[in-house]
């Protein structure tokens, strides 16, 4: 029997009953979407189509459509990639690590956080794919497939190959984890559809729920699989960004060649992931009237995670500066001197302001429990984290060893288009998800309703 202190604030407010939960969540799936949803979907689709034109031109004419040059051969592409992968960290962290730590507050948010993870990873994957000069062969050749070229094999020493493994593994595990969580909820929708006589809906959700019967044995297996997957996903949360950071850390370029990168990147990923979850949830709970499920308490807890990870990131920035000085390596020193004072100083200081200073505001309870403030800071953090990757990639490359090659990077509208494309993709997918899938894990929420619902606490 689970006992919970009366002092803790209820995780679900509004005096919900079990039926209320089903009703509140399934309503979104069963009813026609609101005008807001239509408007959002149209904007997302337009964004997607505009972005798709940039993708088309890149594929048809070449990578030269972007602003890259002989000195800066990665810029927005890999910045966006790392940014999206970072965002894709929160979902699994919330569902896996918090599951293992038995953090019940995760239950209201894990579904959408995981969905966000999946879509963010898809968006992220767009960049390593589309940034290849020859995608059509690269798609196959980066996989260690047996071939007819003699003993030709991929280069297992290359961090880019590690990326391929890390991301595909992460994506598949996250997808399976997410889907398994969805099965009982799909069954609920199926049952409700059957009762209401909506045959198509019942057929589709029946298929999606894999014939879930709600038997005790099924529940038991469900719990076990969730736990096993949580166990599998946990190291992945750490490994993916560690490996992404090795793209830089294993190189010889000053500003990239840093052993601090793995923890620094993982912290940054969680930082940005939580910020993105916050941004999305604040909108979702408002639009879908889910304030009783996703409460201020949830937001506050996530804000606390942001303070912690934001501070880790801040310390990492300072450590980098210290190490540059302490190493005595002129190139390293110059790389950081240039970051702080060089032509990209504005990017560096944007990063510092957004990532180090702004989350510190969450030390004030008033701010971290204020929805508008949280929303604004979550967006600022996302901007900051984008700048972090931009600063690392572009400012390190644009002035490296030989001053003769020093150059600037200027993005083109196609760089912007690619970025917009992934936004279109992300929001289209997220909106479709929020319409057709239950945005909150009903089954889990119901399981905690009895001891942390508002009625119980009273």
């Amino acid at each position, binding site marked *: 029997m689970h006992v919970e202190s009366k002092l803790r604030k209820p995780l679900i407010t509004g005096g919900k009953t079990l039926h209320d939960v089903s009703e509140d969540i399934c309503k979104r799936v069963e009813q026609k979407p609101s005008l807001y949803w239509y408007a959002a979907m149209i904007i997302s689709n337009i964004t997607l189509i505009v972005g798709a034109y940039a993708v088309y031109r890149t594929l048809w*004419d*070449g*990578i*030269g459509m972007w*602003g*890259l*040059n*002989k*000195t800066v*051969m*990665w810029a927005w592409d890999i910045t966006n990639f790392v940014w999206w992968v970072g965002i894709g960290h929160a979902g699994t962290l919330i569902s896996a690590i918090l599951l293992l730590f038995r953090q019940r507050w995760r239950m209201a948010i894990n579904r959408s956080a995981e969905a966000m993870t999946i879509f963010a990873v898809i968006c992220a994957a767009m960049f*390593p794919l589309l*940034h*290849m*000069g*020859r*995608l059509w*062969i*690269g798609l196959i*050749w*980066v996989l260690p497939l047996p071939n007819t070229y003699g003993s*030709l*094999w*991929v*280069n297992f*020493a*290359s*961090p*880019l*190959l590690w990326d*391929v493994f890390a991301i595909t593994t992460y994506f598949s595990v996250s997808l399976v984890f997410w889907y398994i969580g969805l099965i009982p909820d799909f069954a609920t929708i199926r049952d409700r559809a059957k009762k209401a006589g909506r045959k198509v809906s019942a057929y589709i959700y029946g298929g999606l729920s894999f014939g879930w019967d709600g038997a005790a044995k099924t529940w038991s297996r469900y719990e076990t699989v969730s736990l096993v997957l949580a166990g599998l996903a946990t190291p992945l949360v750490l490994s993916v960004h560690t490996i992404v950071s090795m*793209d830089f850390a*294993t*190189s*010889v*370029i000053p500003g990239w060649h840093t052993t601090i990168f793995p923890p620094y990147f993982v912290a940054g990923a969680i930082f940005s992931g939580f910020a993105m979850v916050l941004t999305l949830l604040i909108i979702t709970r408002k639009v879908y009237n889910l304030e009783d499920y996703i409460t201020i308490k949830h937001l506050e807890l996530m804000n606390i995670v942001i303070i912690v990870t934001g501070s880790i990131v801040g310390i990492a920035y300072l450590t980098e500066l210290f190490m540059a000085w302490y190493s*005595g*390596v*002129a*190139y390293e020193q*110059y790389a950081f*001197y240039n970051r702080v*004072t060089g*032509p990209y100083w504005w990017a560096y200081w944007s990063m510092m302001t957004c990532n180090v200073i702004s989350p510190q505001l969450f030390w004030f309870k008033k701010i971290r429990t204020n929805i508008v403030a949280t929303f604004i800071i979550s967006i600022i953090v996302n901007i900051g984290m984008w700048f972090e990757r931009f600063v690392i990639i572009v400012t390190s*490359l644009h*002035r*490296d*060893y*030989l*001053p*003769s*090659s*020093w*150059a*600037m990077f*200027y993005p083109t509208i196609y760089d912007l288009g690619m970025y917009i494309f992934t936004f279109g993709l992300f929001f289209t997918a997220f909106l479709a998800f929020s319409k057709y899938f239950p945005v909150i894990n009903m089954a889990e929420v119901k399981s905690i309703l009895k001891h942390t619902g508002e009625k119980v606490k009273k």
Partner: protein
Amino acid sequence: MKKGNKTYWKGIEQLKNDPAFVKNAESEFPEFLPIKDSSDNSRRDFLKMMGFGLAAVTTAACEAPVKYAIPYVDKPVDVDATLANYYASTYSMGSDYCSVVVKTREGRPIKIDGNKYSKISAGCTSSQVESSVLTLYDRQRLQFPMLNNKESNWRDVDNFVKEGLSKKGSNKIYIISHSVNSPSTLDVINKFSKKFDVNHVEYDTSSYSGMLDANEESFGKRKIPFYDFSKAKTIVSFGYDFLGSSFNHDLFNQQFTKQRVVNRDKREMSRLYTFESNLSLTGANSDHRIPIKSSHTKIYIAELWNILNGKIGSGRDSISFNKSKRSLLKLDILNKVADDLIQNLGSSLVISSSNDKSVQSVVIMINELLRSYGKTIDLNRCYNTRKGDDSKMTEFIKDLDSKSVHGVIFLNSNPVYNHYLSSRLKDALDNVPLKISTSDRIDETSILCDVIAPDSHFLESWNDYEPIDNHFSFGQPTIRRIFDTRQHQDSFLRWIDSEVNYFSTLKNNWRKKQKLLKSNEPFQIFWDRLLHDGVAEIVDEKTKNLNPLPNIFKTRISEAGKVSNLIESETDNDGFELNLYHNLTVSDGIQSNNPWLQEMPDPISKVCWDNYISINPKDASKLEVKTDVGTMTTNLLKLENNEGSFEVPVIIQPGQAEGTIGLALGYGRKLAGPVGDGIGFDANQLLNKKLNIQNLTVSNIKLENTFKDFRIAQTQTHDTIMARESVIQETSLDQYKKDPYSGKYQFKVATSKGFKKPEDVTLWNGHEYKNHHWVMAIDLNACTGCGSCVIACQVENNIPVVGKEEVLNRREMSWLRIDRYYSSDADVNDLQGLEVAAENPDVTFQPMMCQHCNNAPCETVCPVAATTHSSEGLNQMTYNRCIGTRYCANNCPYKVRRFNWFKYHDNEQFDKNIAMNNDLGKMVLNPDVTVRSRGVMEKCSFCVQKIQEGKLLAKSEKRRLKDGDVKMACGSACSTDAIVFGDVNDKNSRINNLLQVEKIDKATLKLKEERAYAVLDEIRVSPNVWYLRKVRNKKTA
């Protein structure tokens, strides 16, 4: 069935005579095909069909398009597919000359190398020469003769010309050409002149009239003597860019560097002083460069004469001028120069670019005083490549004005564009009834002509040349005429109704000259040898050791007097002084339509696809010039003088003398062709049209900033080395003599066991190169930065031209670049200050290409192993495998990798890349090197195709590869031998001797050569390219 005959049955059905079998036995497919027309087709069949169909269609679509190669029906003698043939020939364009060896593949010339037998062109090539092979395949060349601006044929053209010439009457006929140094051509012109009484006027785009006239007065020869910089220990140049824009600069580079290279056996080098206003290549390579106004050159020269005259004491008069003028001079440095010159009497050289006869006379006096004649200047060997006479050209224009000219033949010349009196000439040409041009294209002059009788390219022509008296060079065609063109000599012969053609004339001339060459062979053998060698020399014992003529001094004293008048009449004004020059890329604009030259960065400013005003930083800030190195944006300045007002972009040039600006000629062509048209600004417009001599210094220019933005393409925008000693190492001669290791930068890594060298703490296991180990050495003391290697590399390796827009996007494709660094006056810890170049900086050139690292950072990061290490130390790029992640390029510390951002071949957007975008241009491509596709990475391959060729040659001759079998394109184009390549595993190789390889331990070389260093040694990528430290010979106080 017959007895005794074995019978085989198709199966048991046949034996049994199964009725079903018999029925179908004769059909092609006796068995039923699974698909029938009837309705009992199963779903399974349908799926099978679909499956097969889909698979068949897909696999059929996989087939690459077939391109048919047409084999020879009769194989031409000496042409073997895949094997190159080499022919000696001679480059000739404008007034320039170079003895070359032409590489042809399957009958097409694809590469031009220097002819090592030649003593005149140094066996090397300049960028102009290297590029000229593409001009051969320029579609803009005329493909037929033109009559009255319409396509015509040779018969009509010949009749028209003959008829026209016969109507001459008492009026004059002129031939206008660049300096012609071909004896047989001159012979033809003489014949032509005899018949039609022709005036042959020669001119040079950069006139040497003043020097020639002074020489004529002093020595009786209107020629330029042979300068030998290799014998000079002190060289003083007054604005004369002998390493760059000068004629025959290949040889001058070679001679100059002979005195510059130091090693364990030779610890001495020459010292070069340069007084100039624009930062030229000569200035960049000098030990002391003194920025001065060009108009002050004559005062400097006069004062130098006075100082030397005083110190050596010739007993002759000083050149007197007002004391106020003396205050304009930097006398202390001039005194040092004088001391140096006196110390090295007989081994010093003073030269000046002045086109003024009296100034050049003083230079002659100085050289005579310094006993240079007979030592560093040889009057017995004189150049024939510059003979132009400005006064004759002025006379010609006067004749035009007075309508006394009946006909004019522009022999491969384009004075309406490239002569300084172009605008006067253009207007006056209306007065001429018969205008003929032999230009190879419709250019600014030929468009005004009635007839264009297009000359063949030099690679399609026979000719002989005499660039220096008694030194000959031969031109033989290396390809059949591509278009319906005709050598101009043949045209002349046809117009005088000669029965012989030029080839027989040429041969006959040499039949006569055979004796002079002391040859007793049968003529055919002699002739074949001439063509094989490409060069010949008549050794005349009588003139071999002749001292200069000292008894002509009197005439020059009067000239010296004129100098004082000149100096006195010189009035300083507030305006800027403009100095025009020819750069090393487009030069005088003859090959403006050649994209290789247009995209070649200027050695100093690294600008391509434009000319520009260079201005001193102080003047720039006075004019509030705003530049942005990131976007390469600058301002347009308004230039104003008597000739008009013009808007030209500006580049802030450290080292530019204050109050002066520089501007290159050779740009702003209107009718060069689609590549060259409208590129840059035609600086000829600014020249004073009233002068009788070309004066490239224009004074009293008003400058104004228009504040309009203009983007100018540069391949390097950061000028200074940022005190990075592991990139550029240099020392001074004095220190080098004391300690050959001086200037060495040894990075030490702090470890738990104390400080260690990077190679001692490496993580790498190293490589074992059992067979060959290819290594390159680049001597920074020998490299003058001219950039001919850059073009050679481009030609050899099919490197695409990307156009100005893409250079602005910093995507030029050159595998080999020359980094140019200016020194900075800032403290090494002042990182911001270090970004600013010194006002008069020391300049260092560093050729930079793939360093073929033994521990290559690019190799480890490629996900598909497209860039790998060879068993001979090469870092090789497999284009087919490359998927274009560009990680290798990011991880390259030298940033030498180039990415194919777009498809540069067969793409209309890159039509300026004519070598890859039309069928004619493609003939220049090297068939041994792949044309890279879009989306792959590329970089210097150490000319792996040449290594392979050398190995195959050795193999076919059943011997081991020997040193010199493999030559890099860059190394063979280098006149100064700055780039040496070879196998260090070969104990006797040049590279081994040069670097003094002591030990090779797992690809780590231990070198005894003190000057050798690897760039960025501390990151321990262990490059296979070694640089030899630069030594400057500055005079210490």
